[in-house]
């Protein structure tokens, strides 16, 4: 599938099916996703996978989902580098969302206030030198994810220098 074919499909709301998410597939997709641009090739990311087959995991923190992927980022002392690293992580996540879509996997990329809470993050194994960049809610979705709804009017804010 070509990327341009996916335009319009990525904005459908995601409803998960009750099916397990195989780790091998996650790793396979991530091994492509990590070809994201990243300054200084610092590869600032790390992954914590949490299966939610039995339900109840991350209750009160996240919406229910068959699995979660915590995307953890090393925190550089330098603010400028921290920003670049966060940008790189976002590019990597975007790659992953696109790849997952091709496999009928829905990805909700979420950022919430609890992720800034160090002691909360620690309970998931996040180190003091790291932060949670985002939590991805993952699961298989029905094929209608591939429908293209009426394109919403898009106001591109594009100006000339």
């Amino acid at each position, binding site marked *: 599938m070509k990327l341009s074919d996916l335009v319009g499909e990525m904005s459908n709301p995601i409803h998960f099916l009750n099916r397990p998410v195989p780790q091998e597939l996650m790793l396979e997709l991530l091994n492509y996703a990590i*070809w*994201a641009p990243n300054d200084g090739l610092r590869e600032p990311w790390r992954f914590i996978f949490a299966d939610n087959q039995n339900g109840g995991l991350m209750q009160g923190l996240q919406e229910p989902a068959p699995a979660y992927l915590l995307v953890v980022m090393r925190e550089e002392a330098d603010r400028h580098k921290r920003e670049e690293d966060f940008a790189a992580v*976002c590019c990597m996540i975007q790659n992953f969302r696109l790849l997952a879509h091709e496999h009928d996997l829905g990805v909700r990329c979420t950022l919430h206030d609890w992720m800034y809470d160090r002691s909360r993050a620690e309970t998931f194994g996040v180190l003091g030198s790291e932060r949670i960049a985002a939590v991805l809610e993952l699961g298989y979705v029905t094929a209608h994810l591939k429908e293209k709804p009426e394109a919403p009017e898009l106001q591109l804010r594009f100006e000339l220098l």
Partner: protein
Amino acid sequence: MNLSELIRERRSIRKSNSRPVEQELVVELLSSAARLQPPIDAGSWRVVYAGTPEANKRLVDCMLAQMSQSKLGKLIPGKLLDVFKKRFTDIPAHVIVMSTVGPDRLTNDRNYASVCGMMQNFQLLGWERGLGMLWDTESIIQHEGFFKGIGLRKDERFVGILHLGYYDKAPRSRKRTPAEQKWTVFQGHAT
């Protein structure tokens, strides 16, 4: 080119050829890039485009203003500065991206994350058309004069410049760490 090949093969392009970049294509790719995202607040980012020789010159001047005026810059021989200038002036087009600053950290992070995702879509869509890019955040350009030059507003932050151009040959890729080495499975019962 399928999606995984596209993602794997995209490279940052630091040397472009002289083939011009069409503004219409840039607008088309940006619209598509935005439509590969969840429907987000469209007001959370803005781009400023430089694609004519005059605009490019203005951009390069404000990028390098600090450098040429700083103490260190004064030590740089004029000739070297010219070489530096020419390197940028030869790039056919530039997309400057800014994201809206919100009232709190979470809004800022969300806005920033979503515009970065859009920029990755844009880089990939460009690559699909043979258009190369380089995401530039060099700290040397990040100063007052530059922000003023690009028209950055009070409620905005600078995310990066994407330098755009067609290329003769893509550079070789550099090895990445396999995901398996950065993978942990959570076993506990947090929350």
